[in-house]
C-alpha cells in the first residue's frame, strides 16, 4: 500500500508532467477552422474500425509501416521459430471446420476448429496490417487486403500465397459478391476499387466523395457506399454488374438543429433497407444521442429516425427476419443512476419503436452484441468483462452469464459464430503486451450447454478471422 497518499499524488503529477513534455507546441497543428472557409464534413476514413481523416490515414499508415518494418525485421524470426515449435500439421487444410486468422505478423494461420489447434502459419508475403479478410465460396482461397494496398489470394489447399493484386491506396474494407467473382475494396476517402477475382485484376477506382463505409446487398447486385455531397452525408449505389454509380441519395439531418455524423451502415437481411447509424450532437446543450436513419432503398426515401438514449456506438444487430434490431447503449445519467445504465435496446424495425430496455451488468463498458444465427439468443460481450451475457430475445431477459475469466488479463472484444451456429468464439486481446506484440486468443463457447472450451492463443496477435463456409 502507499506509504503516503501525497507521495503517490506527487508522483502522478510528475509522471503527467513528463508525459506532457512529449507533446511540444510544434507538434500541434495550426488552428483548423477559418472564418472564410466553411467547415465541411471531412471524410472519415476507417482503418479497421479506427476512423481517421484520409490524409491522416496515409500518414499513419506510413508511420505504422515504419514501425512494422522494424518490428518484423527484429521479431518475426523469433516468433516463427517459437510458433513452429508447438504447431503441428501443415497448411493445406480447407473446409467448413477451419478458421483462418490474420496476425500482426503478416501471417495467415489456419485453425482446425475440430481439434482446437493452430496449424503452421502461411506467410502472406506483404507488409502491413490487414484491412479485411474473406474466403471464397469453395473454401479454397482466402483473400487478405493489406493497408498498403495489396490484395493477397492465399490458396489454403496448398498453403501458398499468390501474387498480390495491387489495389493501391490505404484500404479499409473488403467485400465479395456471393459468387466469389468480384471483390470491392474500400479506399477512404476516395471511393472503392473493383477487383475481378477470376482474372485477379484490379479494375480501377470508382470515385465517391468522402467514401467512408460500404455494404453489399445480399444478392450482391448493388454496393452502397456512405460518402458525402455538398449538403452532407449521402448514400451512393454502385451496380456490381457494370461497376458504375446508379444513384446517390442525399441524407438529411436526422434531428432538426443537431449536428450528425455517420457511423456505420447496416443492411437489412432482405436488402431493401439500409440503416445509417449516426452520432448526433445538440450544439446548444451539448447533449449527444445515437440516431439510426432507415433508408428505403426501393425509392431512396428516408424514414423517421430512431433516436436512442445517448451517444455511443449505435450499430444495429438485425434479426434474421429483419423485424428486430438490437443495440447496446448506456442511458443518460440520472440522480439515481449517475453513471447511466448499460442496457440492450430492442428496436421494432417496423414501427421504429425502441422497446423497454434489457439491463446488463453494471461497471462494465464497451458492450458488443452477437446474435445467434437463428436470432433466438443475443450474446453481450463487455470489453472489460470476464463473462458474456446471453439474452433470450423472445422474452427479453438476460440469462445466466457464461464465465470466461477474461478481464483483467484479456480484453474480450467480439463474439463470432462459427458456421453451424453452435459454437461462439469470443475473441480477446492481451492487455499486457510483450514488446510490440499484442497477443490474441479465441475462446470457444458451446452455446447449447454454456460450456467454455480451451482457448487457442496467438502470440503473433489476432487481427482478423474468417471461417470456412
Amino acid at each position: 500500500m502507499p506509504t503516503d497518499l501525497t507521495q503517490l499524488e506527487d508522483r502522478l503529477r510528475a509522471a503527467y508532467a513528463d508525459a506532457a513534455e512529449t507533446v511540444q507546441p510544434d507538434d500541434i497543428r495550426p488552428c483548423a477552422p477559418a472564418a472564410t472557409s466553411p467547415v465541411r464534413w471531412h471524410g472519415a476514413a476507417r482503418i479497421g474500425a479506427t476512423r481517421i481523416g484520409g490524409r491522416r490515414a496515409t500518414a499513419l499508415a506510413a508511420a505504422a509501416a515504419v514501425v512494422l518494418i522494424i518490428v518484423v525485421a527484429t521479431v518475426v524470426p523469433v516468433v516463427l521459430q517459437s510458433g513452429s515449435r508447438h504447431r503441428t500439421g501443415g497448411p493445406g487444410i480447407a473446409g467448413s471446420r477451419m478458421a483462418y486468422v490474420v496476425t500482426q505478423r503478416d501471417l495467415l494461420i489456419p485453425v482446425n476448429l475440430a481439434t482446437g489447434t493452430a496449424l503452421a502459419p502461411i506467410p502472406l508475403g506483404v507488409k502491413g496490417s490487414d484491412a479485411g479478410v474473406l474466403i471464397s465460396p469453395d473454401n479454397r482461397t482466402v483473400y487478405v487486403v493489406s493497408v498498403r494496398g495489396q490484395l493477397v489470394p492465399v490458396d489454403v489447399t496448398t498453403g501458398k500465397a499468390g501474387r498480390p493484386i495491387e489495389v493501391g491506396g490505404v484500404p479499409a474494407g473488403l467485400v465479395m459478391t456471393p459468387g466469389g467473382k468480384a471483390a470491392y475494396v474500400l479506399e477512404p476517402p476516395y471511393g472503392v476499387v473493383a477487383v475481378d477475382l477470376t482474372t485477379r485484376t484490379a479494375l480501377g477506382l470508382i470515385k465517391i466523395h468522402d467514401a467512408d463505409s460500404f455494404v453489399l446487398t445480399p444478392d450482391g447486385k448493388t454496393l452502397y457506399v456512405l460518402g458525402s455531397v455538398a449538403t452532407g452525408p449521402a448514400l451512393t449505389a454502385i451496380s456490381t454488374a457494370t461497376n458504375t454509380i446508379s444513384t446517390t441519395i442525399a441524407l438529411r439531418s436526422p434531428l432538426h438543429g443537431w449536428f450528425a455524423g455517420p457511423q456505420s451502415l447496416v443492411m437489412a437481411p432482405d436488402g431493401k433497407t439500409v440503416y445509417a447509424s449516426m452520432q448526433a450532437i445538440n450544439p446548444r446543450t451539448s447533449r449527444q444521442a445515437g440516431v439510426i436513419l432507415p433508408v428505403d432503398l426501393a425509392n431512396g426515401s428516408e424514414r423517421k429516425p430512431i433516436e436512442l438514449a445517448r451517444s455511443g456506438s449505435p450499430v444495429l444487430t438485425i434479426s434474421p427476419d429483419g423485424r428486430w434490431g438490437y443495440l447496446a447503449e448506456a442511458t443518460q445519467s440520472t440522480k439515481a443512476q449517475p453513471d447511466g445504465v448499460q442496457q440492450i435496446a430492442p428496436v421494432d424495425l417496423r414501427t421504429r419503436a425502441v422497446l423497454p430496455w434489457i439491463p446488463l451488468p453494471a461497471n462494465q463498458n464497451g458492450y458488443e452484441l452477437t446474435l445467434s444465427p437463428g436470432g433466438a439468443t443475443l450474446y453481450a460481450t463487455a470489453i472489460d468483462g470476464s463473462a458474456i451475457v446471453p439474452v433470450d430475445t423472445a422474452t427479453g431477459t438476460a440469462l445466466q452469464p457464461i464465465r470466461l475469466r477474461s478481464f483483467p488479463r484479456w480484453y474480450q472484444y467480439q463474439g463470432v459464430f462459427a458456421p453451424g451456429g453452435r459454437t461462439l468464439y469470443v475473441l480477446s486481446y492481451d492487455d499486457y503486451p510483450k514488446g510490440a506484440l499484442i497477443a490474441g486468443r479465441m475462446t470457444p463457447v458451446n452455446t447449447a450447454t454454456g460450456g467454455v472450451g480451451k482457448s487457442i492463443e496467438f502470440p503473433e496477435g489476432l487481427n482478423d478471422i474468417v471461417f470456412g463456409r
Partner: protein
Amino acid sequence: MSAPPAIGLLPDQHSTPAADEVADLYRAHGLALVRTAMMLVGDKQSAADVVQDAFIGLYRALPRLRSTDKALAYLRASVVNGCRSVHRARQRARGRPVQHAPAVWSAESAAMAREESRLAMQAIARLPTRAREVLALRYYLDLPDAEIAAALGISRSSVSSTASRALAALARELQGDL
C-alpha cells in the same frame, strides 16, 4: 464502432464566423488539450486528431452555445468523448496495434526519459477508462471534481469514488517503487 463525430453540415445551419474566438481558444488551450488527449490515447497523432475534431465541433457549435464560457467545458467533454471513441475503435479493430504509434510510455517508445514516470504512466494505462480520465483531469489539468464531473458527464461522487479506487489500485501496483 464509434468514432470521433464526423460532423455533417445541416441545411439549417447558418455559418457564423467565429474563427477568431476559436483560434484564441486554440492558442490558449490547444496544447494542454492535446497533451490531455495524449494521456488518454497514448500517442500524439491520435490525440491531435481528437482535439482537431473537438475544435471543429466547437466551431460549429459556438454560435449556438448559450455562453462562450461554456466553450472550454464543451471542448474538454468533446476531447474525452473523442478519446473514448478512439479506444472503442481500437478495441473493435480486432487488435491492430500498428494503426497508431505506440504509447509514449510503452517500452517501444523512447519519448519518456524518466523511468519512474514511464512506469507510473504504464500503471495508469492499465486502469479502467474512467479512472484514467479522472486522474488525467485531476492530476494533469488540476481541475476540481465539479469540473471533472462536468467534463465526463458523471456525478461528483462518482469522480471521487473513481479517483479513490484508482489511487488504491496504483498504490498497490507501484508499491515496490514508492
